[in-house]
C-alpha cells in the first residue's frame, strides 16, 4: 500500500487529504489518482487526457517536483506520494489549475509560420534541409504542460511574464528557415515581459518532461533579439 497525500482545494480553502492505494508494478500516479476517484472520493478533480505523455494535461507536483502523472511510476516514489497542483498557476479545484493565461501567452508569440507569400489557394512546398530542421527540432517537442512555467522564478513574481514555454515556441519559429516573421516575434520577445525577464535559474530545463531545454531556447532567443535591436539601432 502506498499513501497518497493530496493537496485539495474546494474553491475556498486548501487542505491535505490522504488515501491508501494498493500499488502494483507499472502503476502510474495517474492510475493511482483514478483509483482514488473510483474507490474513495469521486469529487477528486484532476486533468488528464492521453495517458501517454503527449497531451501535457496531467502535469502536477509529485513529491515536490513537477512531473507528468501519466509518466511517473508510483513504485519509484517511496511509501508516501505527495501530489499538489503546479506552482505559479491559479488553482481552480484540487489539482486543476487555470491555464487560460498560459495559453494566451503562447498565442501572443505567434507560434505559427509567418510567410509573406501566404496563399492558401495555391499552397507552395517549402523545402528544408536536415541541418535547418535540427536548428529548432528539439523545441518542437514541447507539449505545453506548464512544468517549466511552474518553476520559473520570473513567472513567480510577475504574472504577465511570458514564461519559458511561450518563449521556446517563439524561438522555435524564429529559428525555422521557412519563417519570415522573426521581426514581429523579436518585438514581442524584447518587451518588458519577455526574454529580459529571465533570471537564468535554468530550473525549467531541469523539470521539462520532454527534455526540450527551454532555458537554452530563451537564451538563444535573447541573443537573436539583442542582435535585432543592435541592427535596428545601427540601421543595418
Amino acid at each position, binding site marked *: 500500500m502506498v499513501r497518497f497525500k493530496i493537496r485539495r482545494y474546494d474553491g475556498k480553502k486548501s487542505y491535505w487529504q490522504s488515501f491508501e492505494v494498493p500499488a502494483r508494478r507499472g502503476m502510474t500516479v495517474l492510475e493511482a489518482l483514478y483509483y482514488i476517484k473510483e474507490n474513495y472520493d469521486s469529487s477528486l478533480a484532476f486533468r488528464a487526457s492521453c495517458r501517454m505523455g503527449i497531451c501535457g494535461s496531467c502535469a502536477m*507536483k509529485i*513529491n*515536490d*517536483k*513537477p512531473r507528468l502523472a501519466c509518466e511517473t511510476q508510483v513504485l519509484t516514489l517511496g511509501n508516501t506520494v505527495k501530489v499538489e497542483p503546479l*506552482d*505559479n498557476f491559479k488553482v481552480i479545484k484540487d489539482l486543476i489549475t487555470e491555464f487560460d493565461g498560459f495559453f494566451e501567452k503562447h498565442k501572443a508569440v505567434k507560434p505559427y509560420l509567418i510567410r509573406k507569400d501566404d496563399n492558401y489557394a495555391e499552397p507552395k512546398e517549402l523545402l528544408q534541409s536536415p541541418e535547418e530542421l535540427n536548428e529548432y527540432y528539439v523545441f518542437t517537442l514541447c507539449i505545453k504542460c506548464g512544468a517549466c512555467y511552474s*518553476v520559473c*522564478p520570473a*513567472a*513567480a*513574481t510577475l504574472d504577465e511574464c511570458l514564461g519559458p514555454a511561450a518563449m521556446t515556441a517563439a524561438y522555435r519559429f524564429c529559428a525555422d528557415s521557412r519563417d519570415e516573421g522573426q521581426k514581429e516575434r523579436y518585438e514581442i520577445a524584447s518587451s518588458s515581459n519577455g526574454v529580459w525577464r529571465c*533570471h*537564468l*535559474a*535554468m*530550473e525549467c530545463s*531541469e523539470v521539462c518532461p520532454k527534455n526540450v*531545454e527551454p*532555458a*537554452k531556447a530563451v*537564451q*538563444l532567443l*535573447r*541573443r537573436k533579439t*539583442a542582435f535585432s535591436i543592435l541592427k535596428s539601432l545601427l540601421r543595418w
Partner: protein
Amino acid sequence: MGVSGWFRFKGRSLFSWAFTFQRLTGVVLLIYLLAHLTYLSTLLDKTGATYESMIAITVSRQFLVFDILLVLCGVFHGVNGFRIILHEFGIAYEYRKPLLAIFTVIAVVVWLYASYIMYSLTGG
C-alpha cells in the same frame, strides 16, 4: 506566488539553489553598499578620526565573522554572476552542470583563502 517563489528548494535542482543564493547575496551587497555610501557621505569630521574609529571596529576580531560573510556574498555573487553572463546568449549551455560545480568550487576556494588572510590580519 510572489517573492516566496524565489525561495523554493524542495524538489529543485542545484540551479535553483544557485539562483536563490545569487539573489540573497545581491540584496546583502546592495544593503551594504547603501549603508557604506550613506556613512561615507554623511561624515562631517574633517580630521578623519570618526572614519578611523569606524574602520578600527570593522577590522577587529569581533567583527571578523561579518567580514567573512560579506566576502562570501561578494565572491559568490561575482563568480556565479560570471557563470550566468557566460550562459547568457546560450554560450556553453551544454556544460551548465559541470560549470555550476566548477564555479561553486572556485567561489568556495577564493572565499576560504580570503577568510584565512583576514583571520591572519586580525592576529589569528
